C-alpha cells in the first residue's frame, strides 16, 4: 500500500471495532497511531496492522480515565493527526450499576467523560490548525433511556450531545465532527448475547462506514451504520413517555 501522507489517531485500539477501523485506514495508505490502556496489547495490534498492510503504525499507552495525562499524551503524537477516532466504551452491568456507585461512575466516565474530553481537546487543536475530522462512537442506547441499560445509555447520550455541540461550535472552523451509532455489533462487548441478525453489523462493516463518512465520499454528521436504524429509532424516539415508561424494550 502506498503511504498517502495522512495520519489517523485511533483511541481504543484493542476493541474489535477499533482494530477493524485502523485496518481500513491502513489499507487506504494512512499512517496509524494506536492508543490503548495496555502497551503490550496495543503493540500486538500495531504488529498485526503493520504485517497485514505494511503501513507505518505507532503504539501508545493511555487510560481514558486519566485525564491529567491527556495534554502530555497529545504532545507525543506528532504531527497532529488528520482524523481522530475514539471507540473507547464500556457496557458495564446495569444491575450492578444500580447497586454500586463506583461501577456506575466508571461506566459514565468511560463512555462520556474520557472520550468527550479527549475529543474536545483534539477538536480545539484541529480548529487551531484549521482542519481535521473528529469521530466519536456513541450508541442507539443514547437515543432514549431504557430500564435495561440507562447508565450506559445516559453516558452515550451525553457523548452525543457533546459531539453535537462541538460540531455546532466548529462548523465554520474547518473541523468535521461525526457521531457514529453502530447499532448492534458482533464484538467482545456483545459476546454471548442473542442479537437480531438484520440489526447486527460486523466490526468490518462499522469500520467501512466510518471511513466512508469520515474520509471517503459519503457525507453525514450523525450516522447509523445500518440504515434500518434510522426509521427504527425515529419510531422509538416518538413513542410518548407515558407509554414508553411501560414498555420493556
Amino acid at each position, binding site marked *: 500500500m502506498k503511504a498517502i501522507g495522512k495520519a489517523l489517531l485511533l483511541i481504543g485500539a484493542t476493541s474489535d471495532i477499533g482494530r477493524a477501523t485502523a485496518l481500513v485506514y491502513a489499507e487506504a495508505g494512512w499512517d496509524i497511531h494506536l492508543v490503548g490502556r495496555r502497551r*503490550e496489547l496495543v503493540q*500486538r*495490534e500495531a*504488529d*498485526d496492522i503493520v*504485517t*497485514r*498492510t505494511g503501513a507505518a503504525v505507532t503504539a501508545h499507552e493511555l487510560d481514558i480515565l486519566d485525564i491529567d495525562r491527556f495534554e502530555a499524551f497529545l504532545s507525543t503524537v506528532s504531527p497532529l493527526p488528520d482524523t481522530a477516532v475514539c471507540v473507547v466504551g464500556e457496557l458495564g452491568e446495569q444491575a450492578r450499576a444500580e447497586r454500586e456507585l463506583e461501577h456506575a461512575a466508571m461506566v459514565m466516565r468511560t463512555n462520556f467523560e474520557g472520550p468527550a474530553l479527549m475529543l474536545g481537546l483534539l477538536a480545539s487543536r484541529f480548529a487551531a490548525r484549521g482542519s481535521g475530522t473528529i469521530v466519536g462512537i456513541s450508541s442507539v442506547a443514547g437515543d432514549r433511556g431504557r430500564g435495561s441499560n440507562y447508565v450506559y445509555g445516559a453516558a452515550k447520550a451525553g457523548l452525543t450531545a457533546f459531539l453535537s455541540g462541538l460540531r455546532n461550535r466548529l462548523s465554520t472552523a474547518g473541523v468535521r465532527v461525526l457521531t457514529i451509532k453502530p447499532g448492534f455489533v458482533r464484538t467482545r462487548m456483545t*459476546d454471548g448475547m442473542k442479537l437480531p441478525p438484520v440489526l447486527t453489523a460486523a466490526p468490518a462493516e462499522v469500520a467501512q462506514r466510518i471511513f466512508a463518512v469520515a474520509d471517503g465520499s459519503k457525507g453525514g454528521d450523525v450516522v447509523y451504520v445500518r440504515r434500518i436504524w434510522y426509521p427504527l429509532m425515529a419510531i422509538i424516539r416518538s413513542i410518548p413517555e407515558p407509554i414508553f415508561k411501560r414498555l420493556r424494550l
Partner: protein
Amino acid sequence: MEGWGRYPRHESEVLVCRLPETLSGTVSSRAGLIARGNGRSYGDAAIGEHLTLTCGALSRMKSFDEMNASLTVEGGVMLSDILRSFIPRGYFPPVVPGTKFVTIGGMIASDVHGKNHHRDGGFGEHVSEIKLVVAGGEIVTCSRAKNSELFLATLGGMGLTGVVAEATFTLRPITTGWIVQKTVVTENLADTLKALKQTDDATYSVAWIDCLSRGASLGRSLIFVGEHASPSDIAQMPKAAQFPPSKAARLSLPVDLPGSALNRASVSAFNDLYYRLGARKAARASLVHWDSYFFPLDGLLEWNRLYGKRGFLQHQCVVPDENALAVLSSMLDRFARSGKASFLAVLKRLRGGAGLLSFPAPGYTLALDLPVAPDVFQLLDEIDKLVVAAGGRLYLAKDARQSRHTFEAGYPRLQAFKEVRRTTGADRHFSSQLGKRLGI
C-alpha cells in the same frame, strides 16, 4: 459440537481463548482438552474429550520478513486473511487446502496438502518454527533444529501435542492473482492415473472423477492443471485486475436440504463440462481467478447443509502407486454399485509427508462424500479393507468413523508419535474425540 460433516455430535465444554497471554494458564488448568480452529475438519478431530478450546481470537499477524518471504502469525489467523493481505503484495501461501476458511493452527495440525503436493509437499514442509503450548502450559519453541521430534509430531499431529500459539512459514512470490488452467479429458482410470503422473511437473494438478461411469469408462475424469499466471498471460486485462480481491461469498443456506441435492448439482455440472471439453479434445488454456481455482466451494457458504441434518462423511484415502490402478478401480466400482457416494470424486497425486502422523504418502489420494445413512458404515468398512490391503491410509482431518485397526495399519510412525506424547505429558492432557476413538 460437530465438525464440518455434522457427524458425529458430541457434548463438550467450550472455552474461548481471547488473548495469547491467557493461553498458557487455560491450557494447563484442565486435562482432556483439544484446540479448535475454524471447525473445517469433517469429523471429531476438533472436539475435546472434556473441553474444546477455540483459538479463533488468536488472529493477529506478528511480522513479515520480506527478505525471506517469511510470515509469523498467531495460531488462529485465518488463511482467508493471509490471502487478502498478501495477494495484493505479490505473495501466495505455499500450500492451500480446498477452502480458505481454515486457521493456520488447523493447517499445521492436519499438515494440509494442496493441489501442488506432488511438487511442493504439505503445508508443514514450509513451516520453519512453531511456538507450542504444551501440557504444563510452557511455551516451547520447536523447529527442525530445536525440539525436532516435537516439531515433527506437531505437523499433522491433530492438536494432540499441544496448542499452536504462533507459527512461521514462507510464502511464495507471485506476479499475478490468476491461474493459467488447462484441462485434460481422460477416458478411463488407467488413462487418468497416467495423465496425473504426466502432469507431475505442473505446479498444480487435480482430477475430478465421474463416479457414475462404469465398465470401460470407469474412472473417466477431467484433470485441471494450473500454473500461476505471469503478467504477459494477463496482458489484455486492465492493470487493476492484476491482483484481484477475493470473490464475495454471501449465500448461505437458510435450511437443510435433502441429501441428494448436492449430488444432482455436481453430476450435471460434471457431465456438462465433460462433454463440452471432450468435444473440443485438447482444451485451450484459460485464465481463472485464484479464488475460483483454489476454493470453488467457498462461494457457497455453509454448503455442508446441502447434505441435510444427518450430516455426511468424507472418505479420503491414499494408496501407493503400485496398487493404485487395481485398488482404485475396485473402490470406484464398489462406490458406484452402492449408489451411496457422491457422483464426483477428487483424485490427486501425493508425495511423502513431513510429520509423524501426516496423511500424505507417495501415491494417489481419492476423496468423496457420502450422506450419513445406516448402511454406509459397512460399505466404508469394506472399502477400508481394500485401502489397508493396498498399504494405504485414511486422512484424519476427514475421518469420523475409521476403525483402530485401519488407523494403526496405515500410520507406521504412530509409536514414535505416542512416544512424543508420553515424554511431553500430552498423553494425559490433550484429548479429542478422534484421539479417544482411535486410541492415540
